[in-house]
C-alpha cells in the first residue's frame, strides 16, 4: 500500500482551499492519516478522502448562496463549478418528485440506449477480433443472378493458386461430430477447415500446434484442434490432452492443439472442434459444381482490397471459360469478412440504434420540458439572484450545472438498468450471431454513455438557461412570472410537438414490424407445426460402418417411438423444415436436356424415412406417397417433387411418370410419383421453396445424422422425455441433440423479428407515455397560468363546455402539428425498415393510420385532466388573486 496520502485528494485541497488555512488543514489531514496508516492502511485512505471532501465542503470561503452570485472572475473556475454542483444537488434534493421523475425517465432511455449500443458496438463497430482484420475477406462465386454462391473445392484450389494478392486463404464447411467417451457420446458443433484457416484469421493455438499442409490430405486427415471451452469443460483444462487420441464419430483422431480462450470463430460462433478438410481433387465431393464450401482469404498488407477483388474476379472468369459446363455465372464476389458475417443483423441493429436514439431524444425533450416548467415557477428566484448581482452568465452557468447534474444522475440509473437488462437482451439474440460473446459494458460503452449524457445534459441545461437569459428580470419581479412564461411557452410547445412527432415515427415502425410478424406467422408453411416433437439422432461410430446397420438403427428408432402411447406417427428426415439446414441440388429433367447442367433449377433435398410426409402433414396434391415396400427397396428410384419444382421443370405438363436426376451425370434417373405442396424451408419469408423427397434407402448413401419428427395426439412437451428415453434405449451411446417442438423451431426461425418487434414496441410505448406526459405538462401549466383568464371567462358566463374546448383546442394543436410532422418523418424514414418487413409496404397506410389513432387517443386522455381542472377554477379565487 502506498505510504503517501491519496495524491488526487491532496491536489484538490491545494487547489481549492483558501490560502490562509491550506497548510494547517492539509497538515492535519496528513498527520491523522499517518497515525492511522500503520494499523488500517485502507481505512486511512478512505478516511483521508472523507476528511478532504468534508474540508472542501466546509472551508471554501463563506456561505454558498453568496458564493454562487459573486462574479466568476473572482473565483477559480473549479471553485465555481464545485459550488454550482453542490447548489444543483441541493436544488434537486428540494424537489424530489421532479428529480425522481427525470432520473427515472431519462435513466430508462439512457439504459435502453446503452443496451442497444453495447450490442451494436462489438458486432458492427469494432473490428473483428483478429490482427489486421480489415484485410480478411470472404470470397464467393457469382451466381447467374449476381448473388453470392459457395465454392466447390476445385474452384477454391484454382483461385488460391492464381490470386497473387492473397497471403493466406482457406475453405471450410460444416461439421457436427460426436465425441465418444467411455460411456457417452456428445454431439458438438465443429468445422472442417483447410489447413490455412487459422493462419488466414491470424490466430494461433494456445497449446500444441496449428494444422499444417501435411495434415490436409485424405490419408493424414486425422487431427483435430479443440476450442478452449471444450478443453476446459470436457477435459478439465488438462494440457496433456494435446497428443492424445479421441474417438470422434467412430474415427480415431489426435488432438494437436487447443485454441486460446479469446478466440472467437465468427464464421461458426458455436464451433468447439476443428478438423482439416482433407479433400483430394479426385474426390467426388471436390468437384467444381459441389458448391458447399465457404472461402475466406487474407489479402496481402500492401494490396488494396479492391485490387484483390478485381484479381479474384478475373481469375474466376478465366476458370469459368476453361470449364464452361461447370459454371453458370461468372466471376467472383469479394466481401469484407466483417460485412459478410454481420450482413443479416446489420439492418435490424442499425434500425434499433436509431429508434433508441429517438427515445433518448424524447426523454431528453421531456426533461427540458419539466425544467422549463420549473423555470417559470422559479422566475422569482432567478430575479432575486440577479438583483443581488448575479450576471446572466452566472445564472446560465447555474442552470447548466443543474442540467448536467440531473443527467449524470440519470446516467447512473441508466447504467444500472443496462447492467440488469443486457443479459435479458443477449439471451434473446438470434442464434449464430457473431461476436455475441463480446457484448458487454466495456469502456467504449461507458464512453458512449458519457458522451450521450453530456450532450443531453448540455441541452437540458442550456435551453432553460437561454430562456432565463432572455427574460426581462425586473418584469419578472414585478409581474410574478408571466413574461418568463411567454418565451418558455413557445419553447415547451415546440418540444412537445417534437416529442409527439418522434413517438409517432417509432409507433409507425413498431406497427409495421408487428403487422409483418402477423403476416409472417399466418403464412401457410405447407406443414402443420402443432403437436410435433423434433430431435436430431445419430448413427455414428464403428458399429454403423455399413449402410444396412444405419438403416436398421433408423427402423428400430421409428418402431420403439411409434409404440409409445400418445404417438400418432413417426418420420425421419435429413433436413428439418425451418431448421436452418439447407442442401440444394440442381434438378435435371430427362426430357429437357440443358446445354449447361448448371442452368438446372435448384431443389431442396429431403432424404426421408418412415412416414415423414404424413407426420409433417405435407399434402401430396397429385400422385401418391411412397409405399412402405417401395421405400425399403434400394433398387427402385422414386421421387416426390414440390409443386413449384414441378411447374419449373415441366410447365403445363403432367409431371407424374417423368424422370429426373440430381447430383451429376453418374447418378440414377428417378421417377416422379407424386407432387407435394410447397413448404417454407429457408424461412417463413422464403422466396424459393422447391423441394424434392427421396426415401433414405434410395439416396447415394446412408445418412448417419437425421432429425426424428414425432406427431403426438396431445401436448408434445409432455412426451419429449418418453421419446428421448425410447431413442436412447435403441443405442445409449448415440447422442440426441436439438430437442424441440416444431412450434419452437418455427418461433426460433423468426427470433430476430420477434426481438426487433419486442424492443421497438417497448421503445414506442415509452415514447408515447413521455410525449403524452409532455402534452399533459404543457396543458396543466397553461391552465394554472391562465387560471385568472379562465376564471374571468366563467365569471362572464362561459359554459364549462366552452372552457373544456378551450383547453382541448390547445392540446389538439400540439398533437395535430406533432402528428403531421411525425407522418412526414415516418414516410421519410420507414424505407430503412424495408428489409425487415414482410408482406406489407414500407409506406403501409394502415400502419400509419393505426399509429396516428393510438397517439391521438392517448393525447386526448392527456388533455382530460387539465381540462377538468380548468372547469373547476373558481371564478372568485381567480379574480381575487389579481
Amino acid at each position, binding site marked *: 500500500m502506498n505510504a503517501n*496520502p491519496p495524491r488526487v485528494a491532496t491536489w484538490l485541497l491545494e487547489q481549492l482551499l483558501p490560502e490562509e*488555512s491550506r*497548510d*494547517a*488543514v*492539509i*497538515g*492535519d*489531514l*496528513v*498527520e*491523522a492519516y*499517518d*497515525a492511522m496508516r500503520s494499523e488500517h492502511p485502507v481505512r486511512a485512505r478512505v478516511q483521508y478522502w*472523507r*476528511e478532504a471532501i*468534508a*474540508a*472542501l*465542503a*466546509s*472551508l471554501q470561503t463563506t456561505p454558498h448562496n453568496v458564493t454562487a452570485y459573486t462574479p466568476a472572475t473572482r473565483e477559480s473556475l473549479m471553485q465555481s463549478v464545485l459550488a454550482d454542483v453542490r447548489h444543483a444537488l441541493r436544488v434537486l434534493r428540494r424537489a424530489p418528485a421532479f428529480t425522481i421523475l427525470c432520473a427515472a425517465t431519462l435513466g430508462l432511455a439512457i439504459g435502453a440506449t446503452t443496451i442497444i449500443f453495447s450490442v451494436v458496438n462489438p458486432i458492427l463497430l469494432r473490428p473483428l477480433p483478429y490482427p489486421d482484420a480489415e484485410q480478411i475477406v470472404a470470397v464467393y462465386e457469382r451466381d447467374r443472378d449476381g448473388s453470392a454462391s459457395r465454392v466447390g473445392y476445385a474452384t477454391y484450389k484454382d483461385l488460391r493458386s492464381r490470386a497473387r494478392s492473397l497471403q493466406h486463404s482457406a475453405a471450410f464447411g460444416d461439421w457436427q461430430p460426436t465425441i465418444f467417451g467411455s460411456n457417452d457420446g456428445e454431439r458438438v458443433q465443429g468445422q472442417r477447415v483447410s489447413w490455412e484457416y487459422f493462419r488466414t484469421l491470424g490466430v494461433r493455438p494456445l497449446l500444441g500446434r496449428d494444422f499444417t499442409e501435411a495434415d490436409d490430405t485424405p490419408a493424414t486427415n486425422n487431427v483435430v484442434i479443440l476450442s478452449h471451452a471444450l478443453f476446459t469443460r470436457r477435459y478439465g483444462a488438462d494440457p496433456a490432452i494435446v497428443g492424445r487420441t479421441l474417438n470422434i464419430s467412430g474415427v480415431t483422431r489426435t488432438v494437436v492443439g487447443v485454441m486460446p480462450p479469446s478466440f472467437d470463430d465468427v464464421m461458426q460462433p458455436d464451433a468447439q472442434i476443428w478438423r482439416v478438410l482433407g479433400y483430394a481433387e479426385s474426390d467426388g465431393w471436390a468437384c467444381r459444381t459441389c458448391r458447399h464450401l465457404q472461402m475466406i482469404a487474407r489479402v496481402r498488407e500492401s494490396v488494396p482490397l479492391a485490387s484483390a477483388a478485381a484479381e479474384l474476379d478475373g481469375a474466376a472468369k478465366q476458370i469459368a471459360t476453361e470449364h464452361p459446363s461447370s459454371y453458370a455465372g461468372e466471376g467472383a464476389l469479394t466481401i469484407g469478412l466483417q460485412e459478410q458475417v454481420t450482413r443479416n443483423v446489420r439492418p435490424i441493429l442499425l434500425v434499433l440504434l436509431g429508434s433508441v436514439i429517438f427515445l433518448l431524444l424524447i426523454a431528453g425533450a421531456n426533461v427540458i420540458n419539466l425544467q422549463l416548467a420549473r423555470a417559470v415557477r422559479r422566475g422569482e428566484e432567478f430575479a432575486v439572484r440577479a438583483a443581488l448581482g448575479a450576471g446572466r452568465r452566472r445564472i446560465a452557468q447555474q442552470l447548466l450545472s443543474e442540467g448536467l447534474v440531473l443527467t449524470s444522475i440519470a446516467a447512473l440509473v441508466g447504467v444500472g438498468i443496462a447492467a440488469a437488462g443486457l443479459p435479458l437482451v443477449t439471451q434473446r439474440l438470434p442464434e449464430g450471431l457473431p461476436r455475441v460473446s463480446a457484448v458487454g459494458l466495456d469502456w467504449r460503452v461507458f464512453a458512449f454513455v458519457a458522451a450521450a449524457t453530456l450532450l443531453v445534459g448540455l441541452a437540458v441545461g442550456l435551453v432553460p438557461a437561454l430562456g432565463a437569459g432572455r427574460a426581462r428580470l425586473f418584469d419578472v419581479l414585478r409581474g410574478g412570472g408571466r413574461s418568463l412564461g411567454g418565451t418558455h411557452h413557445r419553447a415547451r410547445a415546440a418540444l412537445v410537438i417534437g416529442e409527439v412527432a418522434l413517438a409517432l415515427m417509432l409507433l409507425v415502425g413498431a406497427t409495421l414490424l408487428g403487422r409483418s410478424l402477423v403476416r409472417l406467422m399466418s403464412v401457410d408453411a405447407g406443414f402443420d407445426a402443432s403437436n410435433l416433437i423434433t430431435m436430431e439422432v445419430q448413427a455414428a461410430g464403428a458399429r454403423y460402418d455399413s449402410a444396412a446397420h444405419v438403416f436398421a438403427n433408423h427402423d428400430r428408432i421409428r418402431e420403439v417411438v411409434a409404440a409409445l402411447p400418445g404417438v400418432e406417427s413417426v418420420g425421419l428426415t435429413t433436413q428439418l423444415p425451418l431448421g436452418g439446414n439447407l442442401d440444394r441440388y440442381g434438378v435435371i429433367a430427362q426430357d429437357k436436356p440443358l446445354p449447361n447442367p448448371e442452368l438446372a433449377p435448384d431443389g431442396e433435398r429431403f432424404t426421408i424415412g418412415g412416414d415423414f410426409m404424413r407426420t409433417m402433414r405435407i399434402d401430396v396434391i397429385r400422385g401418391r406417397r411412397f409405399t412402405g415396400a417401395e421405400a425399403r427397396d434400394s433398387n427402385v428410384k422414386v421421387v416426390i417433387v414440390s409443386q413449384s419444382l414441378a411447374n419449373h421443370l415441366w410447365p403445363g405438363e403432367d409431371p407424374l411418370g417423368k424422370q429426373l436426376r440430381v447430383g451429376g451425370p453418374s447418378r440414377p434417373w428417378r421417377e416422379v410419383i407424386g407432387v407435394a405442396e410447397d413448404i417454407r424451408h429457408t424461412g417463413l419469408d422464403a422466396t424459393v421453396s422447391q423441394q424434392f423427397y427421396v426415401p433414405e434407402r434410395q439416396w447415394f448413401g446412408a445418412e448417419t445424422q437425421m432429425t426424428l419428427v414425432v406427431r403426438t395426439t396431445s401436448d408434445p412437451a409432455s412426451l419429449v422425455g418418453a421419446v428421448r428415453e425410447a431413442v436412447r434405449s435403441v443405442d445409449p451411446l448415440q447422442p440426441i441433440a436439438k430437442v424441440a417442438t416444431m412450434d419452437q423451431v418455427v418461433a426460433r426461425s423468426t427470433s430476430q423479428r420477434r426481438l426487433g418487434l419486442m424492443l421497438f414496441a417497448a421503445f414506442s410505448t415509452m415514447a408515447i407515455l413521455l410525449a403524452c406526459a409532455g402534452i399533459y405538462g404543457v396543458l396543466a401549466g397553461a391552465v394554472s397560468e391562465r387560471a385568472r383568464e379562465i376564471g374571468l371567462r366563467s365569471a362572464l358566463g362561459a359554459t364549462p363546455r366552452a372552457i373544456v374546448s378551450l383547453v382541448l383546442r390547445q392540446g389538439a394543436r400540439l398533437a395535430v402539428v406533432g402528428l403531421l410532422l411525425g407522418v412526414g418523418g415516418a414516410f421519410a424514414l420507414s424505407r430503412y425498415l424495408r428489409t425487415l418487413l414482410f408482406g406489407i409496404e414500407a409506406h403501409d397506410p394502415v400502419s400509419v393510420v393505426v399509429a396516428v389513432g393510438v397517439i391521438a387517443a392517448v393525447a386526448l386522455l392527456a388533455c382530460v385532466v387539465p381540462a377538468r381542472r380548468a372547469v373547476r377554477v373558481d371564478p372568485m379565487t381567480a379574480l381575487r388573486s389579481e
Partner: protein
Amino acid sequence: MLGELEQIVLLATLRLGGDGYGVPIQDAIRKATGRDLTLGTIHKTLVRLEDKGFVASRMGEASPHRGGRAKRHYEVTPAGLKQLRASVRALRRMAAGLPVGLEPT
C-alpha cells in the same frame, strides 16, 4: 451567545493550553463526547471563532512528519474565555432545578 459546536471546540482548545491544533482538538472532542467531527468542520469553526476574536492563532514550525506543512496553533483569548464562561453559566442556570440529572452536587 456561542453555538454548541463553538462551545465544544472552544473548550477543547482551552483544554490543550496554547498548543492546540486540528488533530489533538479532534481527538479531545472524540474522547470527551464520542463525536467524530471532521477536521474541516473544526477548522471552519476555529476560523469563525477567530473572526469573532475568541481565539488567536499562530503558525508553528514546519515539521517533516506532516508532509512538511506547518501547524496552526490556537489559543483561547480573554474574550473567548469570558464568552465561554457566560455560555456555560447560562446553560447551568437553564438546567438548575430541573430533574435532568444536572443539578450541582
